């Protein structure tokens, strides 16, 4: 196991080991998402209060949870990059930022659209919405900081530091937003979430879309990391041989 993890830290091995894995992951991801979406959109019974509008939760809730866990993954990778100087960890962190920002955007937009018929407005300054917005800003900041550097190494290190600063800061932002909301308005109940109060025929499709989206995150991160490996290892002979092989096929 340790040997295996150690090998993943080497760009070439990471690339080789993910070559077939990425195809299987793509199949599993699309099957899970397909089942979840068809079930959620067609078979799950409408919510007794929100009617068919509740079907948005099948993408909203997983994207909200994903947005947080992607940050956790990115921060772990940033720490590994800072402490042990593992190059692959930094490439994974870089790849995570974009899909993380995408999830935050999906979470915000679907939440706003869901909120219009439910609350009567697209946006309220709810603690959860506000924190999601700030999370989106932080993702954008990490991406912007990395791309502002000309040097790959400096950009990587700076993005890692900022990511880790965000780990301390984001929980504080969340609690501040929560406190601030109680000051300004009564706490709004986000209503029928996919929690225990709902019957299984409502939350089981959410499991499918949830695991499907997890699969998608890993799929996208691995694909981006593989591209990153090819680019950063462009002087290595195995990459050059691969380029000759792959391009002549096309």
């Amino acid at each position, binding site marked *: 196991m340790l040997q295996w993890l150690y090998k993943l830290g080497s760009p070439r091995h990471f690339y080789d080991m993910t070559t077939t894995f990425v195809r299987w992951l793509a199949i599993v991801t699309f099957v899970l998402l397909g089942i979840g*979406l068809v079930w959620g959109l067609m078979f*799950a019974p409408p919510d007794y209060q929100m009617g*068919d509008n509740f079907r*948005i939760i099948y993408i909203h809730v997983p994207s909200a949870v994903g947005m947080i866990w992607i940050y956790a993954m990115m921060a772990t990778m940033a720490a590994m990059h800072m402490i042990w100087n593992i190059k692959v960890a930094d490439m994974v962190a870089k790849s995570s930022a974009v899909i993380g920002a995408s999830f935050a955007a999906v979470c915000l937009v679907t939440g706003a659209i869901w909120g219009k018929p439910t609350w009567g407005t697209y946006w309220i300054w709810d603690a959860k919405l506000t924190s999601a917005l700030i999370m989106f800003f932080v993702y954008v900041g990490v991406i912007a900081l990395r791309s502002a550097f000309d040097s790959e190494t400096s950009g990587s290190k700076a993005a890692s530091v900022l990511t880790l600063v965000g780990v301390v800061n984001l929980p504080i932002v969340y609690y501040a937003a929560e406190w601030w909301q109680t000051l300004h308005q009564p706490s709004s109940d986000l209503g029928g979430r996919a929690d225990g109060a709902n019957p299984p025929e409502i939350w089981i499709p959410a499991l499918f879309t949830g695991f499907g989206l997890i699969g998608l995150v890993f799929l996208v991160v691995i694909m981006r990391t593989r591209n990153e490996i090819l680019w950063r290892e462009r002087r290595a002979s195995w*990459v050059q041989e691969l*380029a000759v092989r792959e391009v002549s096929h096309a």
Partner: protein
Amino acid sequence: MPDIQFDSLGDFLNMGGYAFYVWTAYLFTLVVLALNLLLPLRDRKRVLKLLKVRMQRDAAQSGQSGLKEGVEE
């Protein structure tokens, strides 16, 4: 297996009157996630192509003169 909740395709598309909200949300999500999948695929092709072009250029240059890696990104 539970039953389909809608009587017809029109009924399904109508989403109990929430068509605009449900379909906008799903469409946005689909577009964002599709971009996340397609961009890396495109990048992969680009990177490999670029690498091959560079190699050919380098090979040609090193054949003519000692100049290698003349233009660096």
